[in-house]
């Protein structure tokens, strides 16, 4: 009995020795900050006194933050951004992947080329697009040549800034999403296509009745991850527009950064962070629900 107990303790010790280092790191850099973040969001803080200056305040930060015009704007902008970004990205990458899977010469090279923007760091991306969109830059020059008299100044135009950001994000993520779709399409059995071809289906019917239903799992996954990622956009905004002009391109994470590090309102920033977490949890929860439902019907 004693010997068994000893062996048990030994195996526990060994197990925790292996996961220990990582576990401590995860606790320090993920779990504790998360709890801390929540604590800050429900407190009133006298920064001059350091950690001791934290006093419980309740949930009023969550109500007061709505008075901030920038927060409301970032929530609305982020939703507009998410919907347009995800819709364009999914449709475009689906089409590209489909054509690429069916008939294209130099498939390998195409994949590499599409993938390049995805691995470039965000600062270099911002630098090159700022140059391309600058007043003397190639894009405005080209538009003037094509006869557009007063081309919009895209990034610094109140109405064009957000759509421009959407397009840059689509450009950046296209290759990655195409490869995800492709890896799903490769797994669709060829004889399914042949079967509907015998029934006289044209290309659009093939896509409608074979490709789309067979890819529902992959598509669903891509939609969910794209939505989640679209709520994390930060670098591009901070580097290219600073949320402007006006509040036209501010987004949730950018506003958290702005509130915390430019205005020093850590409580509001934390409360906004918790709202972001709630949004992401909600989307993940929907994902689980739908996945479960699908498994049940299969």
């Amino acid at each position: 009995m004693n010997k068994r107990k000893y062996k048990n303790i030994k195996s526990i010790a060994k197990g925790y020795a292996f996961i220990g280092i990582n576990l401590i790191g995860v606790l320090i850099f993920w779990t504790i900050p998360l709890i801390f973040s929540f604590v800050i969001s429900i407190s009133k803080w006298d920064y001059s006194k350091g950690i001791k200056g934290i006093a419980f305040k309740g949930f009023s930060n969550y109500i007061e933050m709505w008075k901030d015009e920038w927060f409301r704007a970032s929530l609305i902008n982020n939703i507009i951004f998410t919907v347009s970004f995800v819709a364009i990205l999914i449709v475009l990458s689906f089409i590209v992947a489909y054509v690429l899977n069916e008939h294209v010469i130099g498939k390998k090279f195409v994949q590499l080329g599409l993938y390049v923007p995805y691995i470039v760091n965000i600062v270099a991306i911002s630098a090159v697009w700022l140059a391309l969109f600058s007043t003397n830059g190639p894009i405005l020059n080209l538009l003037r040549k094509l006869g557009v008299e007063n081309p919009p100044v895209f990034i610094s135009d109140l109405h064009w800034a957000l759509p421009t950001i959407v397009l840059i994000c689509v450009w950046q993520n296209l290759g990655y999403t195409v490869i995800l779709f492709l890896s799903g399409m490769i797994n669709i059995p060829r004889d399914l296509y042949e079967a509907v071809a015998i029934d006289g289906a044209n290309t659009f019917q093939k896509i409608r009745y074979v490709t789309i239903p067979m890819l529902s799992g992959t598509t669903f996954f891509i939609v969910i991850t794209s939505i989640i990622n679209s709520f994390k956009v930060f670098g591009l905004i901070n580097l290219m527009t600073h949320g402007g002009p006006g509040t036209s391109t501010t987004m949730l994470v950018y506003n958290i950064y702005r509130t915390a590090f430019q205005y020093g309102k850590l409580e509001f920033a934390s409360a906004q962070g918790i709202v972001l977490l709630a949004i992401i949890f909600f989307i993940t929860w929907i994902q689980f629900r739908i996945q479960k439902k699908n498994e049940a019907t299969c």
Partner: protein
Amino acid sequence: MKKNHKIGKIIGTVCIWGIVILCIIPIVWMISASFKREADVFAVPFRLIPDYLNLDNFKEVWFGKYNYALMFLNSIKVTALSVVFAVVTSILAGYGFSKLKFPGRDKIFLLYLATMMIPPQLLMVPKFLMFKEMGIYNTHWALILPAAFSIYGVFMVRQYMLQIPEELSEAARIDGAGDLRICFQIIAPLCKPALVTLVILFFTWSWNDYDNALIFINDKNLYTINLGLVNFMDETGLKYSLIMAASVISILPIFIIFLVAQKYFIGGLTAGSVKG
């Protein structure tokens, strides 16, 4: 029918190649501009290869007064240490979660899975305050330590190790090998594809990390390449030829790895998702 198919193939190829060219134009433009004189950058008509081709921009960026070389080296240091630590802790914990049995193991793993959902930017504020208390704010450790404990890495190593038959560890154990030895000399070498992928992923994340560096690094001598590039843009104003040369330098390491190990690169970045 056959002829139809051929025409389809040609149209498809042309369209897709058009999209690819649109996609890489900004990058090609960046590289082209980095070799030009400032006056030629926006010159019309556009020339891919300028008449006056030169390396002056690169010389000025690298050896000039901007300390860009130092920031490049800072990034190398931060990235190398992050990758090494993250791979080692991922192997250890992955082994613990897949090959060892102990109470609480599965509950802790569930905690890991839940933690993966947390958007890292949500933790900007608390980490900023904690790092100040811990004394690692404005040091490279503020970038290395959080990267050294990767949840995703543990997850990936665990999944891979679960596929390795238990008999291998059993045989080694009978021969008298301890778990540490089994882990690093027998199991880990069998996980090579997963580990190569992880190295590439960790490298890309650390090298391209802008958010953390922005918040946790303040001292110009400690800037990593991304902050260096921003700083460079601020200091040179609108000298696009120099900015593009600096950008090219900043993407070079990733591009080299991408070209050498594209199979692992693309496989790795899509690995987590295909299973989902």
